[in-house]
């Protein structure tokens, strides 16, 4: 029995098989918004946070921070000081495409999660920050949100109580860095999205200086399920230390890529089988288990590894966003890393010298190796560069750039050495 339990008979809950679930009627026919009403009538805000804490829910946005704990960082409610929730739908981590599907197929679950979170933390408004590229999905969200407003599920005097809450859509404009929570706040404030130094943390000083909590779309979508079915149910799904249903975004050289919903703690090998195995019967060479920022794993490192924080850490990687990229035996790891470095170079906001310059040099060096003009010492220069970048910047983008570079070189050193010029100049030897 794996950590995911009896996953073969797993019934989906984030994206249950219900036709037109994205319509309010279909969602309500499934009992949608019932738990919200119950909570408004019978629950105390602290109890909601407590329940989320007990469920063991960890953020699905990348860092995997316990959600209930994050909520409890909010200062005591003071009616004179507004406070905000931000729902992070920036989803720009390469290899990640789950939030988009959730927004398309089950938007009301997200809205309901937002409203419950607002209740738990005594907030009156939530900004739903969607990346600008998702304009078609923003239109869809706008339409469904209008339906929710019309049905008095959001807005003034919602559900016949005297509570007012608003959900406000914000459209980004194409910058990966806006997914970082403090950068997202700057972007909401209509500025260049330069991340802020922490502390102060968002719970103390967030958007416009007011207490703010930021959660990922999928995290908030889990909340109504937890309150509805109970913290114990949630804690019992999947891996003990990282429980719950989760959306795996599988891409790359597999036969059936796409978003799959299963419990956490699935064996990577099982997921590969679910995704139809490798294309053309090829062998697996490498796996990126959670978006571009996490260290890549070699095929021989995934035996027995499950998709949860603990197991992946032990294997030498991270959970990230559970956006899994499978690469087959023909993959050129130098080209892979060159493209990853290019991504970070392009997306660095430029505030910190180690990141702005470091990502550029990374790209230059790897490009040189890819072009067959690199020297063996460039590899060590790259590793040194990673050390110089990590932990020295305002936000984690520099770390996110250093991790894949360091680990790809370490774990596929042969591939890189083969592409470099020999250590000794032929004319001298």
């Amino acid at each position, binding site marked *: 029995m794996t950590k995911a339990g009896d996953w073969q008979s797993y019934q989906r809950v984030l*994206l249950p098989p219900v036709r037109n679930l994205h319509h309010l009627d279909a969602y309500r026919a499934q009992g949608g918004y019932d738990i919200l009403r119950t909570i408004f009538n019978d629950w105390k805000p602290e109890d909601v946070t407590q329940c989320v804490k007990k469920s063991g829910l960890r953020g699905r946005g990348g860092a995997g921070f316990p959600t209930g704990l994050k909520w409890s960082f909010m200062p005591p409610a003071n009616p004179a000081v507004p406070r905000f929730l931000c729902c992070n739908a920036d989803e720009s981590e*390469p290899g990640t495409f789950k939030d988009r599907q959730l927004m398309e197929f089950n938007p009301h679950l997200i809205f309901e999660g937002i409203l419950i979170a607002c209740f738990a933390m005594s907030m009156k408004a939530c900004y739903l920050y969607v990346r600008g590229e998702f304009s078609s999905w923003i239109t869809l969200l706008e339409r469904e949100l209008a339906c929710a407003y019309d049905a008095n599920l959001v807005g003034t005097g919602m559900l016949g109580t005297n509570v007012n809450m608003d959900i406000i859509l914000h459209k980004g404009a194409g910058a990966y860095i806006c997914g970082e929570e403090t950068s997202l706040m700057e972007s909401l404030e*209509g500025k260049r999205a330069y991340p802020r130094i922490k502390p102060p943390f968002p719970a103390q000083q967030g958007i416009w200086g007011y207490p703010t909590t930021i959660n990922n779309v999928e995290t908030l979508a889990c909340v109504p399920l937890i309150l509805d079915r109970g913290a114990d149910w949630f804690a019992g799904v999947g891996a003990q230390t990282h429980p719950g249903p989760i959306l795996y975004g599988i*891409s790359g050289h597999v036969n059936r890529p796409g978003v799959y919903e299963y419990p956490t703690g699935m064996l990577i090998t099982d997921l590969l089988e679910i995704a139809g195995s490798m294309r053309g019967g090829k062998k697996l060479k490498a796996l990126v288990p959670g978006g571009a920022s996490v260290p890549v794993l070699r095929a021989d490192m995934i035996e027995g590894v499950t998709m949860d924080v603990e197991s992946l850490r032990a294997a030498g990687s991270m959970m990230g966003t559970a956006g899994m990229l499978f690469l087959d035996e023909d993959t050129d790891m130098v080209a892979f890393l060159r493209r990853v470095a290019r991504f970070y170079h392009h997306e660095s906001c430029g505030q910190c010298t180690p990141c702005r310059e470091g990502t550029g040099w990374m790209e230059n060096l790897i490009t040189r190796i890819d072009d067959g003009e690199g020297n063996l010492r460039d590899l060590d220069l790259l590793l040194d560069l990673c050390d110089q970048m990590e932990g020295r910047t305002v936000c984690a983008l520099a770390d996110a750039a250093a991790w894949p570079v360091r680990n790809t070189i370490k774990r596929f050193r042969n591939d890189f050495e083969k592409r470099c010029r020999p250590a000794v100049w032929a004319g001298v030897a």
Partner: protein
Amino acid sequence: MADFIKNPVVDLPDPDPAPHFSEEELVFTANEKAEIARRIAQYPTSDGAVMWTLWLAQDKFGFLPPEVLRLVAQELERPYAQVYGVATFYTQYYKEKKGTHVLDVCTCFSCQFCGGYDILDYLERKLGIKRGQTTPCERFTLQEVECLGACGSAPMLQVSNGPYAHNLTPEKIDVLLATLENGEPLPFVSLTLPQDEDQMQGNRRSDAEAVEAYQVPPVAKLTS
């Protein structure tokens, strides 16, 4: 004057470029003003509406030259420098005039290994331009972009900050270009999830403009 000021390392933008739009064109209609006011009301200060207003301005004018940015700044009563700063930070705001249709081909890592560069290459040859350029007829601009959040249906592209086209093949691109050249709108395509294909025999939405059945993606040849 220091040398680097006389001979800057990078080209500095022209401080006072000739405007593209006349004074008469540079106005927001009453409807647009109402829309902007509605957005401003959703934030503690008018700063929050900067991004929405830039989107509105870009939809109206097609791109955002300095005079349009000034108009946005005036409307929001924010400094020009702030609006200029925001417009130049985000890639989706066009600072220059683009073709009628902008093709944003994703070549980020999932797409890279599923043929994103082959698609880009095919488009370059078909349109006779390089990435980053606009065709002489000003119909198409071709760009290479970072992950668009649709890696499961790679290779893919986005048209003019709007609809996505998934699971691309050269044949599919030919159809796409013909559709655009005929001036027809591209539909929003709802992709079927693999599990929905198994459990619901197809897409769960009955209101999508177009539906793409779940398919084993076309295998493109590999390039780096």
